[in-house]
């Protein structure tokens, strides 16, 4: 009962931002179509990666979760319900956006030959064209898992920051970039590049690059990653207390 209402609140809270987001996206696409169809003589390059914008969108929406937390708590939702409402609303949002983005990609491909979705750019070795049914359905599934994962990342980060004290926040904010920019390269050099090689191999495997650009590898990896981050976020939110 309460879960349904909480999920509805989350979706309604996101819907306004979603409409603005797609308004901007479609405006960009329209201007691209107009340019390429009106002035066909010159080469304007290809437009792509608009699905990457969707990933950023769902990441940011999940990152600003604290406001919903307070609102839902004011309205008698337990932390478990709040967590589940996030899971459900994020999955629904991911499915809706995946459908819209897949359809848009197909439509754009029909209208203009200069469009390539991010998904197609990564996995094009597997597909002959963006118009095939296989591309459409595999893309759809891939989007859903990728968007959910982006949501899980945002949700985990926001919960982590919410539960951390000031000092810990600073340490993490400084420590994580320092680790990736300074410590990791040093370690990698010390090991003769073995660490970088290992990371690259891991991601090539996880995203299916090393297996004939198979997107199912990445779908499974994203799902596992989402479950792990979601689980960690649940542990964090379980004892969260609203801040004044």
């Amino acid at each position: 009962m309460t879960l349904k209402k909480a999920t509805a609140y989350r979706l309604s809270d996101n819907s306004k931002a979603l409409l603005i987001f797609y308004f901007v996206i479609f405006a960009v696409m329209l201007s691209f179509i107009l340019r390429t169809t009106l002035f066909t003589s010159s080469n304007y390059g290809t437009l792509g990666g608009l699905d990457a914008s969707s990933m950023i969108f769902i990441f940011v929406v999940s990152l600003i979760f604290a406001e919903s937390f307070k609102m839902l708590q004011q309205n008698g939702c337990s932390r478990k319900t709040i967590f589940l409402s996030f899971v459900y609303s994020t999955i629904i949002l991911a499915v809706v956006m995946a459908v819209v983005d897949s359809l848009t990609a197909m439509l754009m491909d029909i209208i203009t030959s200069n469009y390539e979705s991010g998904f197609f750019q990564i996995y094009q070795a597997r597909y002959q064209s963006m118009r095939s049914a296989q591309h459409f359905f595999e893309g759809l599934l891939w989007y859903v898992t990728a968007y959910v994962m982006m949501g899980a990342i945002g949700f985990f980060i926001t919960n982590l920051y919410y539960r951390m004290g000031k000092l810990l926040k600073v340490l993490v904010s400084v420590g994580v970039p320092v680790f990736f920019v300074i410590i990791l390269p040093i370690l990698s050099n010390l090991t003769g590049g073995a660490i970088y090689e290992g990371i690259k191999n891991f991601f090539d495997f996880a995203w299916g690059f090393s297996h004939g650009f198979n997107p199912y590898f990445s779908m499974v990896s994203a799902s596992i990653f989402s479950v792990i981050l979601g689980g960690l976020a649940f542990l964090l939110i379980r004892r969260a207390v609203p801040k004044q």
Partner: protein
Amino acid sequence: MKGIEIRNLSKSYGEVVALKDINLKFGGDKIYGLLGRNGAGKTTLLNIISNRLFPDSGEVLVDGETAIENDSAQRKIYMMGESNFYPEGMTIRQAFRWSQRFYPSFDRNLALSLVEKFSLGLDKKMKSLSTGYNSIFKAIVALATKVPYTLLDEPVLGLDANHRDLLYKSLLESYQEHPRTIVISTHLIDEVANIIEDIVIIDQGEILRNQSSEEMLKQGYTVYGTAAAIDNYIADKEVIGFDNLGGLKTAYILGEVDNIIPPELEVTKLNLQKLFVVLTNRRALK
């Protein structure tokens, strides 16, 4: 098992003990006054009942089931807290719509009539509300949700005298139309003295008094007269304080006025505010 039952509840913030093994019951469709000085533990108690804070030990039961992390118990509670938990960009109208969604008992007509009485704009956003109107908005939702247990933490914060008067009247009106348990936590004791039926005094995390307002007021009185006469009179009484003025003395006494008062002494009742101050001061001195 109707009512909110608090059993052996304790809570500390690091070294600071906020609640010490509290046992308490709210219920019976009564209006309670939860009185205590600043930092006595009032807000902590209400925040634990409304599942915002976790207790260190003990339990809170709402109609027999736990209040902690329990949607079905929390659905019966509405907590008007110190800060506004609604999103900054939300309008009053939207907040009402969601309140109605989460609490089916939400009385939209009551909310709208109160909005009019307090001249609050329906399209105002949360972030544009002054401290006073913040309180008014929160109080309106709290009254209109009409849940069995309404918790009001300092409900008149930042309100001017007119709005305070209006709020108390609206509360009594809505309460009589739809009797329910209301807990008012406040330090403005004189204002609520006649409104509340039962009194809970909390001090340094402990329950100091828990009884009906009438019983409570019977308990304290002052006698005034010459020092010698007073000292003679109070020999067998529980005295909780003195005021001296020259050769004259005022004694604050706990207990009911007895029938045999020497004619040279003047007796007055202690009002709730005075009784409260004397009671909590006495503990502070100990």
